[in-house]
């Protein structure tokens, strides 16, 4: 079995005068994988990435990137990594071409114009190569950051919230780019707080909350868990208890008997909703409103944390 591109062992981080940002995280990523780290804001996703990239010093634990110890042999480890940060931090007065070439050289590569040109063309930046970064739109700046991260041909690419505040067309481009990079063998780790994004791009999904990596699973397995939806029926007359004859739906009452709640799997072939509504009609249980909602990410985390304990 080939060695993993990334091994994280027992990495924790406690900031000075601050909370514990990470609690003993273990993570192994194989070459060529796309892994999404899913979690709400402040969960520790960026801290974990920053530690692997060398921007934040871990309080404990060890990291191996492409076979190199990220602390001991940091030069070799970092050469293998490209990082696209969440913030749009760029040099304002540089041209696109200059700043991308700068990144390539900073990571120890000679200024190979061919590769830089390829990266700029892939990101539709070639036409803008002589433009000053300050004159670019937000979406173009994000492309520049990606180009900078790819300039030194990294084996492992980190995308920190790649589509936060990004318009639809760029989001599409971003997803296409991720798939293209994977075809070339680049391993990608991205963070997001959108379930859809994890679903669209990743092979495996890690769920991170309050500094803990709760689980890492194949996408399909996790999506089954995350694909739950709720159907709320607002009743005309409140009920004291769930009536007989509805056992197969495992219904629950909410809002002091004013609402009947049904949890179903949106991805299942049969949601069971038509049959439920039919049965309600037969029993003369009238309802005046009907809404379905996705269980929120927070709900999912609560469930996952509950499950784990």
């Amino acid at each position, binding site marked *: 079995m080939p060695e993993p591109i990334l091994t994280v062992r027992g990495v924790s981080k406690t900031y000075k005068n601050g909370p514990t940002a990470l609690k003993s995280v273990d993570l192994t990523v194989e070459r060529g994988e796309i892994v999404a780290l899913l979690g709400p804001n402040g969960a520790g996703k960026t801290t974990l990435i920053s530690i692997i*990239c060398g*921007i934040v010093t871990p309080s404990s634990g060890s990291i191996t990137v492409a076979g190199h110890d990220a602390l001991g042999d940091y030069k070799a480890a970092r050469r293998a990594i490209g990082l696209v940060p969440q913030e749009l931090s760029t040099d304002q007065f540089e041209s696109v071409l200059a700043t991308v070439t700068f990144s390539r050289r*900073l990571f*120890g590569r*000679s200024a190979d114009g061919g590769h830089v040109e390829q990266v700029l063309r892939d990101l539709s930046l070639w036409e803008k190569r002589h433009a000053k970064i300050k004159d670019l739109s937000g979406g173009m700046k994000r492309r520049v950051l990606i180009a900078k991260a790819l300039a030194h041909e990294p084996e492992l690419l980190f995308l920190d919230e790649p589509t936060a505040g990004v318009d639809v067309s760029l989001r599409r481009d971003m997803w296409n780019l991720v798939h293209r990079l994977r075809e070339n063998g680049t391993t990608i780790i991205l963070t997001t707080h959108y379930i859809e994004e994890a679903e669209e791009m990743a092979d495996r999904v890690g769920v991170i909350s309050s500094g803990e990596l709760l689980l890492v699973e194949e996408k399909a397995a996790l999506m089954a868990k995350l694909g739950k939806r709720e159907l709320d029926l607002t009743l005309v007359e409140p009920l004291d208890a769930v009536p007989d004859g509805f056992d197969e739906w495992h219904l629950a009452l909410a809002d002091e008997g004013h609402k009947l709640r049904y949890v179903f799997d949106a991805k299942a072939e049969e949601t069971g909703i038509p049959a439920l509504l039919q049965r309600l009609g037969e029993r003369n249980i009238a309802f005046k409103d009907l809404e379905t909602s996705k269980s929120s990410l927070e709900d999912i985390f609560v469930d996952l944390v509950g499950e784990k304990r």
Partner: protein
Amino acid sequence: MNLHGIFAIYRFEMARFGRTIWTSLLTPVITTTLYFIVFGSAIGRQMGSVEGVPYGAFIVPGLMLLTIFSESIFNSSLGIYMPKFTGTIYELLSAPLSPLETVLGYVGAAATKSVVIGLVIFATAHLFVDLPIAHPLLMPLYLVLVAVAFSLFGFALGIWANGFEQLQVIPLLVVTPLTFLGGAFYSVTVLPEPWRTVTLFNPVVYLINGFRWTFFGVSDVDVGLAMGVTFGFLLLCLAAIVAIFRTGWRLKS
């Protein structure tokens, strides 16, 4: 050794210099000319000579160092402060660069710029006064040494600073007064006691006198001591920067 990385930083910093090349080069020429009009022609005529050196020539080393100090500190501190300010420091911290390589890039560029400006002042001064150089090899060497030392100092300052105000406070409130009181425009031997003794605690006195000695072979203080203070200051700044990178102070959390 990540030579590509060092040169990437060096060129990036020199490009910043290049964008403002005319103001960068014209300013010292104009300032030097003004100093010569005021001190050299207007006041200097009444001053005669100091320790056998015509006053106009006497002030040249001090004038050069005055600019070298401020340019080195300014360029180096801004060089490392700006990435902190704009957030682009993430790239520097995640790059395969050792602390030494990072410092070589930033400090090398800042020192290069101030040496160039120092030489421009030197050339401008030639238009006004005769400048015989007693130690033609030591003079440029000393110039480079001081430029490197103050660029290192500026680098540490840029890492320490949390705002533009802090960036300016040390050069304006500490370095410039110490330079003016450090015998840039006079010989400390003309001072009455106790000020003469007090002045000897000002490290800039040694820097200026050491540099002046390379020009005219005269110094108010012991030349060996002057060289020692210059090297000492350089080593002190170097030690501060080593400590900063060891602990990640104000760079890494």
